[in-house]
């Protein structure tokens, strides 16, 4: 593709527009702008200091954000997760120090309690621009008309990592102590179906040792969004440190 440039692009453009090459001979000022795009865009280059910063960052293996990306196959990752849960598992009460609140229509910020499913507040989020469609040709949607919000409180000196989750076209994202569930429109073929996903949070200490884990079960049903706190597991080390206090 090295020689694929303006020329081949124009040939295809002609075909797409259904115009003959003869017709194209007449200069069109607007089209001239498109043809100039290449030359204009090619002037955007990183300067030497930017190049240096990029390579320094690459060499340092710098990563943005706090997400832990598993670099092992999913099956091995799942097995390790199950094993670690088995080791640390203690089906018990919710740790007092780890609290999740959800924005609700009826009660404002509502604390999630294990086993209790609550109806979330769906706030308007994105709007479609004129001429844009909610669904792509492949049936997916990257447009989010609604958003549901959660707040997470963790003990001092602890942070949390998460397991990314999507529910169909929806995204669940983390912004520090705030979680956002970006709700996409329901696909026509999903009408009447219940969509569900589990969002896991792991509370880790400053040494990245996992201390607790909790799971939010997120459900979409009849256009409504629900959340339920499923489980909290706490490590023995965490229990010991709490006991010493």
């Amino acid at each position: 593709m090295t020689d694929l440039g303006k020329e081949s692009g124009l040939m295809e453009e002609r075909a797409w527009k259904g115009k003959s090459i003869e017709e194209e001979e007449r200069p069109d000022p607007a089209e001239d702008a498109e043809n100039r795009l290449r030359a204009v865009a090619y002037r955007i280059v990183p300067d030497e200091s930017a190049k240096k910063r990029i390579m320094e960052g690459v060499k340092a293996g710098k990563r943005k954000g706090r997400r832990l990306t598993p670099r092992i196959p999913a099956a091995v990752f799942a097995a390790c997760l199950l094993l670690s849960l088995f080791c640390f598992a203690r089906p018990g009460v919710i740790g007092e120090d780890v609290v999740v609140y959800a924005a609700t229509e009826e009660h404002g910020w509502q604390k999630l309690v294990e086993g209790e499913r609550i109806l979330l507040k769906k706030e308007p989020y994105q709007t479609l621009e004129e001429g844009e469609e909610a669904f792509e040709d492949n049936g997916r949607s990257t447009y989010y008309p609604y958003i549901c919000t959660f707040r997470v409180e963790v003990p001092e000196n602890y942070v949390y990592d998460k397991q990314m989750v999507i529910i169909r076209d929806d995204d669940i994202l983390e912004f520090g102590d705030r979680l956002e569930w970006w709700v996409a429109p329901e696909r026509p073929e999903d009408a009447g179906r219940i969509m569900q996903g589990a969002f896991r949070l792991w509370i880790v200490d400053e040494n990245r040792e996992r201390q607790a884990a909790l799971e939010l079960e997120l459900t979409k049903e009849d256009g409504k969004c629900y959340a339920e706190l499923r489980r909290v597991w706490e490590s023995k080390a965490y229990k010991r440190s709490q006991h010493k206090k």
Partner: protein
Amino acid sequence: MLEKRTDSPDQSVEAVFQEFGNMLYRIAFVMMKNAFDAEDVVQDTLIKYMEHRERGKTFETEEHRKAWLIRVDINLCKNRLRFYKNHPKIGMDQLSRYYEEKEDTRLMDSLLLLPSRYREILLLHYVEGYQGKEIAQMLGISESAVRKRLERGRGKLRDLLEETE
């Protein structure tokens, strides 16, 4: 698919940056509309490239490598855009670094005002010279969607240029 088990000799990250760095930066700049995010995206793309190599994956040809890099670069831009609810419009000061001619600034400014779905298609087609089929494969969308977006993007670009005339 794109990843194959044969490879061309020099595929170090430095060599890749040398060869494709400007292109990756250009795409990221147009998508993100600012130099700071563009730098970060290029950096993350190269880190992903290193990880890809560490997993023992290689590319059949230079073109496969280039297409893979563009795909990762654009996906990282999209991920980042998702996180910016109200991503700022590019300031003229950042564009003026590259352009002296008013017409050039106006053209690039108009391109940056387009929604990202049109911007990426126009960029890949007119600037990087990719065909509809290749763009479709790269972005994981149908060829007809590429065609439609190119048409709409072109129309919107012309409208914007006329408005600012």
